[in-house]
């Protein structure tokens, strides 16, 4: 009651100095620009240190052939990492990667010219596995958003479902090998100095970075991860975007299944094994927050490169492969502790 009278009466007494509020503070602005660069700089620094150490340990490390080798190895985790990053940006998680890869890999090899015989379906051999990945991704997204089952559980189930589809398709016959050398050699083939599969991965990273940065869909994904309730309250089609992102992740896993099969020259239902627990640490080391809303595919790119260089360098330095998972694990622990250390607080919640 009091406020009504005063506002309808002598409102002129309230003066707001808009200039004071809107004046951009130049030092704050500068801090803003550098705030986002801090972590990538630390990552690149770590990468440089690793490269220096490994070059000193083994002269074969810093060669063009080994660079091509590293990039060839890093490409699949990068492709999967793009999907994983998008899903993590909206605050969810996709564990179904390995299952979807298995399903699409087995579908691909059985539809191509392979040692089991059968018909070579040509272009359909590429389309069907990707569609399969897309469908599994769409199922992830729809069950997650419509039935409100946490994404962790839906995608855990879909992991087994994808693996199950692969097992059924695979049957009990002999290991199918691709018989077309053009297919098996495509990924590692050098074009303009770098392997084909890396060009594909790099193009994907650039496109998805631009999409996240400049499109309405990309910005909405960040907003959903940051605060889903506010995003919904602002009229964003939250459900639609979430399903779209799971579809993209599923399709990329499908592509990764095909590429992994081409790299291996054949496939079994275990083709995707190990990729999930290689990609997720890379995403986190890159600095994408598991809570959603913060991070990006360029960071994931750096994270994957860092872990791949580490593994490659350790092998060349003669370290037993038994220690490898410990070192990547320790780096992951150090990276997250370093990232969280400055933000510690008695009332802060970390899940």
């Amino acid at each position, binding site marked *: 009651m009091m406020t009504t009278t005063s506002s309808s009466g002598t409102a002129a007494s309230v003066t707001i100095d808009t200039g004071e509020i809107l004046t951009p503070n130049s030092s704050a602005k500068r801090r803003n620009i550098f705030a986002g660069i801090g972590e990538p700089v630390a990552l690149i620094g770590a990468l440089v240190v690793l490269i220096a150490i490994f070059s000193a340990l083994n002269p074969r490390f810093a060669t063009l052939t080994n660079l091509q080798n590293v990039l060839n190895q890093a490409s699949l985790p990068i492709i999967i990492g793009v999907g994983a990053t998008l899903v993590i940006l909206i*605050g*969810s*998680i996709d564990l179904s990667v390995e*299952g979807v890869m298995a399903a699409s890999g087995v579908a691909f090899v059985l539809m191509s010219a392979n040692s089991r015989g059968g018909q070579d379906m040509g272009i359909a051999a590429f389309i069907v596995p990707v569609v399969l990945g897309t469908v599994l991704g769409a199922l992830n997204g729809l*069950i*997650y958003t419509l*039935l*409100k*089952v*946490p*994404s*962790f*559980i*839906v995608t*855990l*189930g*879909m*992991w*087994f*479902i994808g*693996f*199950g*589809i692969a*097992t*059924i398709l695979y*049957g009990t016959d002999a290991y199918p090998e691709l018989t077309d050398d053009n297919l098996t050699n495509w990924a590692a083939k050098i074009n303009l100095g770098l392997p084909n599969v890396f060009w594909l991965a790099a193009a994907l990273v650039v496109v998805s970075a631009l999409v996240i940065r400049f499109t309405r869909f990309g910005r909405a994904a960040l907003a959903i991860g940051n605060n*889903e309730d506010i995003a919904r309250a602002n009229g964003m089609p939250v459900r639609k975007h979430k399903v779209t992102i799971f579809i993209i992740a599923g399709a990329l896993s499908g592509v990764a299944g095909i590429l992994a099969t081409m790299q291996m020259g054949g496939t079994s239902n275990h083709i995707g094994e190990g990729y999930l*627990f290689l990609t*997720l*640490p890379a995403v*986190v080391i890159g600095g994408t*927050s*598991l*809570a*959603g809303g913060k991070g990006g595919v360029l960071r994931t790119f750096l994270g994957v490169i860092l872990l791949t260089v580490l593994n490659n360098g350790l092998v060349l330095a003669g370290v*037993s492969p*038994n*220690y490898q*998972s*410990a*070192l*990547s*694990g*320790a*780096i*992951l*622990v150090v990276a*997250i*502790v370093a990232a*969280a*250390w400055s*933000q*510690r*607080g*008695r*009332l*802060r*919640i*970390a*899940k």
Partner: protein
Amino acid sequence: MSTTVATGAVSTEKATKDGLLQRRATKLWQAVGPLVIFVIMFAVVAILTPTFIGGGGVTIVASSAAPILLVALGQAFVLNIGSIDLSNAAITVLGAILLAMTLGPLGAVAPLVVLIMVTLFGAVNGLIVAFAQVPSFALTLGTLGIFQAAALVVSGATTVYVDANLDLVAWLYTGAIAMLPMTFILGVVVAVVAWLFLRFTRPGQGMTAVGKNESGAIFSAVRNRGLKVVAYSLSGFMAGLAGITIIAQAGSASPMGLGSDLLLPGIAAAIVGGTSISGGVMNPLNVIFGALTVALVPIATTALGFDPSTQNLVYGVVIIVVVALTLTRSRSATVK
């Protein structure tokens, strides 16, 4: 003016009544859902394959559920405080390997030593999560790698056989009460103790409070950091118990062998047993049925005459369907 107020009050009352009924139904379903689902699945299998019960089906299900149950109980404690432990199955394997190596020289002290060690491994996880305030998913993903490597290095990447004193633990697998092997009975006893602990003790209630609303718990003087360390230590301890059951069953341990694939079944069993993945909801007694359901699925698909290759597919569908059926939803909550 007064009329409007009256109708408003009536409709609210009706709404609360409906809400109350609905809430009661949800609560009841939450309490018995995992049991009902297991019983239905078990009954279907028993009716369709008459040889299942006579042919020792119960013993097979219970003995394969035992390690899953122990790992799942530890996982449920961590899920209950709103975190996750991806490293517990790796701790199981490492614990089993350590036990296989020490059982000969140390004898009866060996299980004790191993249990203390695995509890400390869990405590390290908890200390880092509580005091460095890092996301538990990422941290335990990292320690998973470290424990895996430790298992490989300690065992020399081969199978380690128990060279003496195996009978100290073997009775857990061979002994049985009412067709149920002692390993499973051990799991049930741990579950009952865990239920009493959660329901009737201050730290137990504090853990659930942390999982429901950590800020609220902190303001209510709940020692959230200490409780996180306790939850992770319990996860390590129970993972170690699972390691002991593996040695009891196999008499050997290897980094790639029995137990190395317990992580996902353990999480699935905890969740199918009604544990909330976002924290604050856990009933250890229901986790028993979660573990039994998870263990029954592969056995049931075989018993029902499905092709073994369909096992994974059925497994995935069952996880999603069971969780979709038992999940408590609220309209406003954000699902991640």
